[in-house]
């Protein structure tokens, strides 16, 4: 981004580049598309209010929106269904050919959400941001951890998720 770009244009450009990815990350984090959209937009509003583009805008947006999510969760704005996974978001979809397949997919989705919700926030962030394609270096900068430690932490988070997913499946 050139330094001569007017601030509002810079914010527009960042919005175009980052909103979709930020929304997906937040949606997977919170399981609610409306909340994810609100949080992503609020992060950009905060960016505008900041008055200047941060050194690492993508990391800044993720950090701010994650903090907003944490606040929303803390103040009870997060809906109960996110943690229980009892009701899938109606706007979520997976292309499936039959009702049986849809049922299985829906149950799997709920299980994924429920398992994610049991992991520590940092593990969730690592998994979801990695899934969005961020490198170890970027993850380290965004989450404030040593790049050398990212891989190990991510590997452990992956194992923890898989183990919890299998356990959740065997309980059913």
């Amino acid at each position: 981004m050139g330094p001569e770009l007017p601030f509002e244009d810079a914010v527009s450009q960042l919005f175009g580049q980052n909103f979709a990815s930020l929304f997906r990350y937040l949606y997977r984090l919170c399981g609610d598309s409306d909340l994810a959209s609100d949080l992503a937009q609020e992060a950009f509003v905060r960016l505008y209010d900041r008055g200047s583009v941060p050194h690492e805008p993508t990391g800044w947006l993720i950090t701010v929106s994650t903090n907003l999510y944490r606040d929303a969760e803390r103040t009870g704005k997060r809906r109960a269904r996110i943690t229980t996974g009892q009701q899938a978001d109606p706007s979520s979809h997976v292309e499936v050919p039959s009702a049986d397949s849809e049922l299985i997919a829906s149950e799997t989705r709920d299980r994924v959400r429920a398992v994610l919700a049991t992991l520590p926030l940092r593990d969730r962030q690592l998994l979801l941001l990695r899934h969005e394609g961020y490198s170890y270096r970027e993850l380290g900068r965004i989450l404030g951890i040593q790049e050398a430690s990212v891989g190990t932490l991510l590997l452990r988070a992956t194992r923890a998720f898989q183990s919890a997913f299998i356990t959740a499946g065997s309980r059913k």
Partner: protein
Amino acid sequence: MTPHLTDANLSAILESNDSVDESVRLHIVKCGVCRAALATAKAQEFEVSQLLELLTVTQPDMDAVKFVRGVVSSRSLARAQLRRTRFRHIVRGAVAASILTASVAAAALTPSSVLRRWVHVAAVASGLSSDQPSAQAESPEQSPASQRGVEIFPHGRVDVVFRSNQSSGVVRIVSASNAEISVSGTGDGPNYTVGYNTIIVSNQPGDSLNFVVGIPQLSGSDTVYVRIAGKTVYSNLGNHVTARTPADHNGQIILPFQNLRR
């Protein structure tokens, strides 16, 4: 033989990290246990990725430029509102200070009960008393650029003054939902001067502009006057209205400038 792979080695290989030591690569070739561990790690990574992909949602259709324009617009309005509120507080403070100073000076010559009442009224009018509804002071309503408004304080009076009588055009008096008495014009022609209790519209005799005067629900002793070229064409004393023309079926009073010639 080098020791088995650590998590750090495994993750570095998964990341296709160039910093992976050559001895580690050679170890994988030779060690079945580590090859299996690497295969498991890759499979886990793939499986978790597939599961997370299930959490897919149609993302909202957001236009970057429109979004930022919306933010800019809302922030500009908020700043304008803040400036307006600050200005009101400054004006109130100045008026209150002068009134209270005068009241202290008059205290020696005035019976105390009268003075107390007068000081109370002055404090209310200047917004220092709790009698002043906060909703009026912090009205969130925003005015369009061509609109000017003033608050009417309890027991107060506001004059809306049109300097000139135009050859055509009307003044429409309507009920306002906010706490302000406001004037909005159809164009940017006239200048508006907003004083402590007046709005002066500097229109010209040849203009053919239309105006809307918004008047909120008044309390018992509030008064609003609308004057055009020195003539009082409308008065509202505690919602008792006297006007040159009657209200229409919508409750609006339309005052054509031309009628004032008669």
